C-alpha cells in the first residue's frame, strides 16, 4: 500500500487512489477538448503509469504524483499535460 503525504504536511496522509488521479487527468484531457472516451483511456493509462512508478515506494508526496502523472500525460497529450500542470497557476 502506498501512502500519499499531502502538500506541506498540513493534512493527514491517505492511501493512493487511482480513481482520484483518473478523475483529475480526465478533467485535464476534457479541458484540452479530447473526446470523452479517449480522455478516459488516457486517464487509465496515466494512472497505470503512476501506479507502476509508485508500487515499490512506501510513501510519496502529492507533488511527486502530479510530476509523474504530468510526465505520463505529456506522452499522450501535451495540451492536456500543460493544463494538468498549470491549472493552479492561472490566477
Amino acid at each position, binding site marked *: 500500500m502506498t501512502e500519499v503525504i499531502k502538500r506541506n504536511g498540513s493534512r493527514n496522509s491517505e492511501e493512493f487512489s487511482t480513481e482520484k488521479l483518473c478523475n483529475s487527468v*480526465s*478533467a*485535464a484531457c*476534457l*479541458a*484540452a*477538448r479530447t473526446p*470523452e472516451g479517449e480522455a478516459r483511456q488516457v486517464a487509465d493509462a496515466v494512472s497505470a503509469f503512476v501506479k507502476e512508478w509508485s508500487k515499490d515506494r512506501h510513501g510519496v508526496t502529492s507533488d511527486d504524483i502530479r510530476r509523474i502523472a504530468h510526465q505520463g500525460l505529456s506522452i499522450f497529450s501535451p*495540451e*492536456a499535460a*500543460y*493544463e494538468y500542470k*498549470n*491549472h*493552479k*497557476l*492561472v*490566477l
Partner: protein
Amino acid sequence: MPSLEVITSLVIISVAGLIHASFQMSVSMLTLLSSHTIGSKRSQSRLVLLTNAFVFGAAVAIFMMLATMALIWSLLITVVNVHLLWIICCGLLLGLGVAVWLFYYRRQAGTTLWIPRSLARFLASRAKATKQTAEAFALGLTGVVAEILFIIVPVALASLVLVQLSAFWQAIGIIVYLVTSLLSLLIVNGLIGRGHSIGRIQRWRENNKHFLQFAAGSGLVVLGIYVYVEKVMTIATAVAR
C-alpha cells in the same frame, strides 16, 4: 457630425478601455470557470450559458463602476477646479503604469497575479464551484471588483471625460468604454464557445504575459502624458497668454 473635442474624448475613452481590457484577472477567472465546467462533463450549451453570464456580470460591474465614478466627479467638479482633477488622474495613470511594469505578474510560471494568495484561492474555488448562471453572473461581478486596484484608474479617467460630454455623447462614450474594456473577455468567450482548447488559450496568455504587462503599463504612461498635455498644459498655456 461630432466636433474634434468629442472625437478626442472618445479616443481617450477607447484607449482607457483597451488598457482596462489588458488587465487579466477576469480572463483568468473565465478560463478557470470554463476549464472546470468542461472537466466536470457539462454540455457545451451549459458552458456557453455560464461564460455568457460571466461576461454579462463583468459588463454590469464595469458599467456600475463607471457610473459611480462619474457621479463622484460630477459632484467634485462643482467644488474643485477641473484642472486639479485632470492632474490627479494623470498622476494616478503614471503611478499605476510604473506599478504595472514592475508588479503585475508574479515571477513564476503561469499567469499568477500580484493579488493576495488567499483572495486568489477564494476566487479559484468559487470558479470551480460555479454551476448556475446566476453564480456565473455574480462571479463576473466579483472578478471586476477584485481587480479594482488596477482598473479604477482607467475607469476614473474615462468617467472624468464622460461627465464633460453632452448626454448623447455620454451614452456613446459608455458603450465605447464597455465594448473596448470587455474586448479580451469577449474574444476568449468566443474562442471557448467555438470549442478551442482551454490549455491552448492559457498557453498563449502565459507566453505573451510580459508583452501584455508591458503594453498595459506603457499604455497608462502614454495616456497619462497625453492627457496632461491635452487637458492641463494646453489650457494653462492658453490662459497664460
